[in-house]
């Protein structure tokens, strides 16, 4: 049995995983990062627009501070987040962004003097002070009171990930790439590592660690139309759910981004609208300002995505062979701006659409983008249910996003959570020793090997894994999307339960030898359908509308009955998750109120109905 020991095992080497590893390595602990791709290919690299931190150095960010950032984040979450965590986050973000500057990020900087900017298609003037020349500047993003999103052109995730991995190389942290954790090693109380499949050879290996971190990103790929990379299939959430003990927090909290390009669903950044881009309909007319007079195109993502879908349903979409869509217009921002601040957008439009965004409109429509959901942890990043298990980044429900994440708050979360949780893990490791139970490890390895053998020999049946994945993706896309209702959700749950039964009978069509890609998906498919059932069933039970969770049959946000977080666990042998609930936040620094954008019918905590 091949075995590796370390103090900290980071499953996932994107920004959150590597930031935690950096913290542990700096404190003298041995950390190993596992990654299913070379670390610099992690999906963090695809985040374009930027990272929120209330530095307040640019003139449009003047007067910004951690309190304003905190409030924007709570409102964005539709009061669904943990306010203690949001407070830690907002307070730490400026330090984290400066630390990244010290490590080498070429942040865009304040240029003094007059310049123009666009808002709602109109041109405005601003004057940057010479006093702040050369400090980190920021751009506008949705749902924020100030310009707060720090950026490097529209490759912010890329520069952050490269700089972080540079730090990892400098510190000599080991990254074992093309290694996929397929189960956690635990005894029901303590987690002591993971069983890992090598994606170069197909061999299994046990990694034993005092602390194990899940930082595997989101699970967008259970949806058919998603901006996510092909690797975002929920591997980390699946192995956590498989324990039967560790819950997924708010599985139903799934974000749709307003501007996926049609037909490939590749993201074009919110920075397009932040920098003054507008959304147009079939008549090439703006419409967002009619629904959202104040914020217009820059309301939060859940709100903009809903109005876009509504506008298309009203018959104002542009017909295409790939279904109706709307337009994103950045032409008026001009060639120079697009070629320096929106370079990746220009490249994506040229390559995948044959569209020149300097002179042409970009076809867009909302696509699945982010899972606020994830492995539920406390404010220290420790997972519920198993000692020694932690989670950070999109994979976690640390819960600063609640039911809607603000643009620019995900990159910020990876860096901030990585730093904060990294420090907490260092504290944990300092006072902690654990006994590795070789029998337990042997059992876990044998169980996974047996699973592989069954699939390879098609012992349980011959179901085609790709057919099952497609059926699951269609179900979520068609019935658990932007607008939801009881009838469709019930149907989704019923159909997914049938799909789950079929998923028990998958068999391999290829021989499964070596780094076989079919086996990779087969090992995950049951877990993916379990996640899909968590999303649908939790959405069915939540009889209110909050943030991204919009119920046509329960239009009000119901603070009387639903100021709570869903906790979904999966007991062995069950065909549905077990749902429990906890209060959204122990501390209510900002009591529930109106977001200031979005349709706002609210049933207050004392049962009063407020708003339209």
């Amino acid at each position: 049995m091949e075995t590796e020991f370390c103090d900290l095992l980071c499953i996932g080497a994107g920004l959150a995983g590597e930031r935690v590893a950096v913290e542990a390595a700096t404190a003298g602990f041995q950390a190993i990062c596992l990654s299913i791709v070379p670390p610099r290919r992690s999906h963090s690299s695809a985040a374009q627009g930027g990272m929120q931190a209330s530095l307040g150095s640019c003139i449009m960010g003047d007067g910004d501070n951690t309190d304003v950032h905190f409030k924007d984040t709570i409102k964005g979450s539709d009061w669904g987040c943990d306010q203690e965590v949001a407070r830690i986050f907002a307070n730490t973000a400026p330090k984290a962004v400066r630390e990244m500057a010290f490590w080498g990020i070429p942040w865009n900087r304040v240029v003094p003097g007059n310049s123009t900017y666009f808002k709602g298609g109109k041109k405005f003037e601003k004057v940057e002070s010479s006093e702040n020349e050369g400090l980190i500047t920021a751009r506008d993003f949705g749902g924020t009171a100030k310009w707060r999103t720090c950026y490097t052109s529209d490759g912010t995730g890329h520069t952050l990930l490269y700089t972080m991995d540079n730090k990892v190389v400098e510190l000599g942290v080991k990254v074992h790439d093309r290694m996929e954790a397929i189960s956690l090693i635990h005894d029901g109380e303590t987690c002591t590592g993971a069983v890992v499949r090598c994606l170069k050879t197909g061999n299994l290996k046990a990694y034993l660690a005092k602390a194990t971190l899940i930082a595997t990103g989101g699970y967008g790929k259970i949806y058919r139309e998603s901006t996510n990379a092909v690797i975002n299939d929920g591997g980390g959430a699946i192995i956590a759910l498989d324990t039967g003990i560790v819950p997924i927090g708010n599985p139903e909290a799934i974000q749709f981004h307003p501007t996926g390009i049609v037909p490939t669903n590749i993201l074009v950044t919110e920075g397009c609208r932040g920098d003054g881009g507008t959304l147009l309909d079939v008549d090439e007319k703006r419409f967002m300002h009619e629904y959202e007079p104040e914020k217009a195109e820059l309301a939060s993502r859940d709100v903009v995505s809903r109005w876009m879908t509504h506008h298309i349903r009203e018959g104002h979409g542009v017909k295409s062979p790939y279904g109706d869509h709307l337009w994103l217009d950045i032409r008026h921002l001009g060639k120079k701006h697009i070629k320096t601040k929106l370079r990746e957008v220009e490249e994506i439009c040229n390559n995948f659409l044959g569209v020149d965004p300097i002179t042409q409109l970009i076809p867009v429509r909302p696509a699945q983008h982010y899972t606020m959901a994830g492995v539920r942890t406390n404010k220290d990043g420790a997972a519920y249910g198993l000692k020694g298990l932690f989670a950070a980044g999109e994979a976690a429900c640390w819960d600063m996003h609640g039911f809607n994440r603000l643009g620019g708050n995900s990159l910020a979360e990876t860096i901030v959570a990585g730093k904060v949780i990294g420090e907490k893990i260092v504290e944990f490791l300092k006072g902690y020793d654990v006994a590795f139970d070789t029998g337990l490890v042997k059992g876990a390895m044998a169980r996974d090997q047996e699973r592989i053998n069954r699939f390879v020999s098609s012992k349980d049946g011959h179901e085609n894994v790709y057919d099952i994945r497609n059926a699951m993706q269609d179900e979520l896309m068609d019935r658990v999307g932007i607008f939801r209702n009881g009838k469709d959700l019930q149907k989704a749950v019923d159909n997914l339960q049938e799909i789950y039964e079929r998923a028990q009978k998958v068999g391999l069509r290829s021989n499964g030898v070596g780094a076989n890609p079919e086996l990779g998906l087969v090992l995950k498919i049951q877990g993916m359908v379990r996640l899909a059932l968590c999303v649908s069933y939790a959405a069915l039970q939540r009889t209110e509308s909050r943030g991204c969770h919009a119920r046509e049959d329960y239009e009000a946000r119901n603070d009387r009955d639903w100021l709570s977080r869903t906790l979904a666990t999966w007991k062995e042998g069950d065909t549905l998750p077990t749902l429990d609930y906890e209060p959204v936040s122990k501390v209510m620094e900002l009591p529930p109120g109106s977001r200031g954008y979005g349709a706002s019918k609210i049933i207050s905590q004392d049962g009063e109905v407020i708003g339209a």
Partner: protein
Amino acid sequence: MGRRLKFNIFRYNPLDSDSSPHTDTFFLEETDSLTLFIALTQIREGQDPSLQFDFCCRAGICGSCAMVINGRPGLACKTLTKELPMEITLMPLPVFKLIGDLSVDTGTWFRSMNDKVGSWIHTEKGLDPDAREERMDNALAEEIYELERCVECGCCVASCGTANMREDFMGAVALNRIARFMLDPRDERDEREYFQVIGTDEGIFGCMGLLACEDICPKNLPLQDQLGILRRKMGWSAVKHLFRFK
């Protein structure tokens, strides 16, 4: 009706004793805006589930999917089939170790490259977590970002004459990385320290000036300029060193 595309794909699974290197042929109906990402995914899911290749972001951002497309290294995800003839031949990138079929091990190569060139800010300074950041001119930040856009896809290495002949050649990617740090005032390495890293035949003096890297780079990095600048700087540094100028 779309074209009927013919794909000739290199096949070999080194871990399967029954496998030997050969080419398999697949046919696919061409659809609107078909990319090699969509085509290869359809072939795997519909025709041969054992087919190995690498995609991740499928948006030209992560650099996973470099392969040799009709004789030319490129990113498969952003290659539209309409830009190719009806017969498409796909081979794995040379220089890198083969994992299987079209999949190669770029991770090990790039980690070692980053290690060799010291791809991080070398500084004696400490960070004061409560202080404001050091200032930087925005134009310089943009200049650094220009070189930082490299996605480590490996196309420049695979297309490089020297790298194909000599395993120890660092390639344009490493030289561009050094150029990036030389621009950055936060990196305190001086010219002699950079010279130590790249002032050899494994580095800048190994470049034969064929410049396929410049033609091939999927991110259109200005590699020709950077190689020229580095060669001049390092050449001058060698001369200074020889005559002990200070």
